[in-house]
């Protein structure tokens, strides 16, 4: 009996992981249609590390990649090395680690939820929901560092909970969390808070363990995170990205209005007004607003910027929404382990904190650590709703004194279940269509489509020209990385040749700078690659590349 049940569970887990795998591997590298600049940068740096042990700037085994001045945590590039080694430098290879991590996360979530609730049904449904989650699929199919961070955090928690019984697991937990800090910017805020709340909630269990394990885990955690802390302290540049996107750097209409009000208060000697319009009050307000923005239902249903969700879809399925509410209600009021309750709500409430101190919220990537809490809520909601529906007496409560059997709840019960099931199927098919068919059409611009063809064409024409000028303004920002990526330009050669002048770069016969056609048309024997608006309308193009929705993307022009 026991074994039979286990086999059934294993079979279900296997099917869930298989489904997760299909959804993450199918057309990987083709959908989304092009790597975006961050993916290209992570990929090329992995290639550079593989061949030279240095990043594109020649830094030996960096833990932070300078990249576009956003100082990316380097871990993703390192784990992409094997796949770039095996499959070469291409979109598929760069995205492969993320896809694999996504599948592993789905698998790990089963064990995590089972550990928390000791209920296989909740665990199975949660991991199933994560397997089909639009949010998780979106970032498992692209090389986004956040997905690596999420995977490490999930393992960190899983090992932590295991560690309460078998203490040496705590060391693994410390390693996971430590590496997570190297994975993604948000984790630098999230992980410390997350680990702290784990320690507080499970304090009594931790205190009962042998101290040597705690000390060991603590030491390992410090050792793993030390290089990061060291570079943060010693190199002020590495905080550049954080400064760039933080609310304290905001230049919005609201901020300037606030300054106007403050000036007015000073003129009129209004002291209370000076306090209320104080910069700090404004920032505090903004942080609260940003935090709360992540509970905008329309954000969940519609997403934020196009790269962060499938077109016309959001981060969750619309049918999940009522079950999320029921799930939250059930977790609040049902008899589950108290610490499990606290822990899940803490997780849920901590997840948006890193994004709250940045601009451009709500932000699906910076809050990827929300996963899998939404799925756990949905699973709880689904199970309780199904329980409620099936607890309706079999005879049926019939309306109007039992006269009309057709209205009896007996049929109603099955109708509800069938209705929810159909809704689920429909919503899922809709999502698949939006993701795999519509996304490439509607969002190719957002995915910076067109460089591959541009590079191929440039290479084909390059022998006829002395110099190649590629625009780097507008949506051609950081175009150099796409050339390095698609040319598979030898990193050692690049590191030697590149000349950098603030945002402009040049190597070999390539120059990356804004095109000023009035001046540039005088240049002899030069090939220009730019946006349609880089050139006057009547300029004859050698070649034109369109986005997938047929709107013009790239124009290639040559001079004699």
């Amino acid at each position, binding site marked *: 009996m026991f074994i039979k049940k286990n086999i059934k569970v294993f079979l279900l887990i296997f099917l869930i992981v298989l489904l997760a795998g299909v959804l993450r591997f199918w057309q990987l590298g083709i959908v989304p249609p092009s790597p975006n600049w961050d993916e290209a940068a992570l990929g090329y740096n992995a290639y550079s590390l593989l061949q030279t042990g240095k990043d594109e700037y020649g830094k030996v085994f960096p833990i932070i990649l300078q990249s576009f001045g956003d100082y990316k945590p380097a871990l993703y590039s390192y784990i992409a090395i094997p796949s770039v080694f095996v499959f070469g430098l291409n979109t598929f290879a760069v995205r492969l680690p993320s896809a694999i991590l996504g599948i592993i996360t789905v698998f790990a979530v089963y064990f995590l939820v089972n550990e928390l609730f000791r209920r296989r049904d909740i665990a199975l449904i949660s991991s199933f929901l994560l397997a089909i989650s639009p949010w998780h699929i979106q970032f498992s199919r692209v090389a986004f560092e956040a997905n690596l961070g999420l995977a490490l955090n999930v393992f960190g928690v899983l090992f932590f909970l295991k560690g309460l019984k078998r203490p040496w697991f705590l060391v693994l937990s410390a390693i996971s969390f430590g590496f997570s800090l190297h994975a993604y910017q948000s984790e630098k805020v999230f992980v410390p808070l997350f680990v702290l709340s784990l320690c507080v909630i499970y304090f009594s269990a931790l205190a009962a363990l042998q101290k040597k394990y705690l000390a060991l885990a603590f030491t390992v955690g410090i050792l793993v995170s030390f290089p990061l802390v060291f570079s943060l302290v010693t190199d002020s540049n590495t905080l550049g990205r954080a400064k760039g996107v933080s609310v304290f750097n905001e230049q919005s209409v609201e901020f300037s209005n606030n300054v106007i009000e403050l000036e007015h208060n000073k003129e009129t000697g*209004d002291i*209370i007004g000076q306090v209320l319009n104080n910069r700090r009050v404004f920032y505090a307000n903004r942080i609260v607003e940003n935090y709360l923005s992540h509970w905008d*239902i*329309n954000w969940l249903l519609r997403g934020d910027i196009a790269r962060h969700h499938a077109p016309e879809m959001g981060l969750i399925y619309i049918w999940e929404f009522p079950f999320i509410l029921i799930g939250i209600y059930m977790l609040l009021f049902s008899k589950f382990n108290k610490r499990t309750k606290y822990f899940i709500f803490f997780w849920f409430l901590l997840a948006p904190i890193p994004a709250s101190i940045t601009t451009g919220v709500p932000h699906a990537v910076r809050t990827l650590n929300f996963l899998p809490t939404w799925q756990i809520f949905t699973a709880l909601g689904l199970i309780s709703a199904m329980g409620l529906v099936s607890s309706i007496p079999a005879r049926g409560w019939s309306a109007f004194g039992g006269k009309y059997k057709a209205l009896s709840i007996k049929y109603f019960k099955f109708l509800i279940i069938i209705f929810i099931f159909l809704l689920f199927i*429909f919503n899922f098919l809709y999502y698949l269509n939006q993701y795999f068919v519509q996304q490439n*059409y509607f969002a190719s611009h957002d995915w910076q489509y067109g460089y591959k063809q541009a590079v191929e064409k440039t290479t084909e024409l390059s022998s006829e020209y002395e110099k190649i000028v590629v625009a780097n303004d507008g949506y051609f920002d950081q175009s150099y990385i796409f050339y390095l990526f698609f040319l598979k330009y030898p990193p050692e050669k690049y590191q030697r040749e590149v000349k950098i002048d603030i945002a402009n770069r040049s190597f070999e016969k390539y120059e990356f700078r804004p095109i000023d056609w009035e001046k540039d048309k005088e240049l002899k024997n030069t090939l220009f690659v730019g946006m349609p608006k880089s050139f006057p309308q009547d300029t004859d193009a050698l070649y034109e590349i369109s986005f997938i929705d047929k709107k013009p993307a790239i124009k290639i022009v040559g001079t004699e």
Partner: protein
Amino acid sequence: MNNKIALISIIIVAFVLRFFQLGSNPPALTWDEVAMGYNAYSLGIDGKDEHGNFLPFAYIESFGDFKPPVYTYLDIIPIKIFGLTPFAVRFPSAFLGVGTVFLTYFLTRRIFYNSNRKELYALSSALVLALSPWHVMLSRAAFEANAATFFLVVGIWAFIAAVSDRRWLLVLSAVSFAISLYTFNSSRITAPLLAILLAVIFYRQLFAMKKQVIVALFVGIVLTAPLVPFLLSDKASIRFQEVNIFTDLIPLERSNQEIVNDENAIWSKILHNRRLVYGFFFIEHYFDHFNPRFLFISGDINPKFSIREVGQLYLWDLPFFLVGAFVLFRKREGKWYIVPLWLLIGIIPAAIARETPHALRIESALPTFQILVGYGLVTVAFFLRSAVTKKSFRRVLLAFIFFALLGNIFYFQYHYWKHYPRRYAQDWQYGYKESIEYVNQVKDQYETIYVSEVLERAYIYYLFYLQVPPQEFRETVKLRRDIFGLIDVEGFDKYVFSRSVESEPVKDDALYINKPDRVPKNVRILKTFYMPDGTIKLVAYVY
């Protein structure tokens, strides 16, 4: 006894927050307020509206739209008493606002009738509504929505009272729901839905009181019937066509492209069906009203409904709102289900419109938000009493909650009195009054007075502030109807309203009122009229 004192105090607070300087903050009357005021003035004199229609009941034709008439009728008596002033125009809204606070107490007591905390729930809900930035803002201007909310609350309270013990109140409920149909456009959707909802919930009780049901139905039908021909006419649909989401073609074009992307497969036509597309569009607009930014941070983007510094609710209301919502479901006291159902129905009319979230169109969901907050406050207070045994610590916690709320209220009131009238004067169409007072002093010196229409609908302000006798206006008015049948007033008496005063004929005996950037060079400027922030709004000049 204590409860009575508490209720009276709440009413006093509500009264002060709504009536204090009612005529001067918001800083000016909008054209809708002026139109209702002048039509009420006109109706009070000879029973005809500005255009001479005798006792209009389906609508009052004003520029550009067909206003539901009730608010205008409510204005008649205040204007008779206080004269044609901003205070008088806003009086009904403020008065009914206080009335809604008062009724919220009785309504909440009825809803939680079997709870031993019902008194506290009722008092705290009424208090939250009395202090609510949402309700205070909407009570301080002549908003039809605010009057409609009062009638809906009366309707619901009377219905619940009727099915509980006071059966004949059912007739009052029917009357009140019917009046709300004549008060605000959104109520034409919410009132029937709420009435149906209540009838379904209480069908057993209704079966037991057939006499009252028949009388109420009869009264309701008789009162509603005259409105039906208007609702079915083109006039009613003009505005609806303009604002509703289903006439937006962008989603349709997109779904057509999606079907093309699927190579016109049949399954794709089902998947991207336009009914589903618009259904989802509706849901999106519906959920806009639960946007935390709208509810708790900066409110409606229209500064007439929110000061933009505080949400529709206070930020500190948020935890109590959540506690209230969850515990309401948990404890299921009395007729608890009315609160969420009412809230959900109240939002429907606004979700059909394009501009969402919209604080005014969902006012029919008030006071459910405040009842939830009030419920949450009481729940938390009781929870602290049982969970925190140390008395001094409990006092500290309660004091913290209290002062945080007080801080929020202070923040709102401070901004409302100090910054709001200066910063958002433009949104209240500030600037007419000063110029018209000047014109009033000098009008006898001129044969013709040209007034810029660039600020729109100047004529109604002239009627209002000059207290032009309605007969005189009707005799001298020059009207033009546009292709939609909407009325445009080009002038009356010696006043000419023009889109470009600068190109009107140059006359020695004419006065010109124009926007500063349109004043010709060779003129003599007599007076300039300023906005509260010091910018120039209008200029009076002669050649």
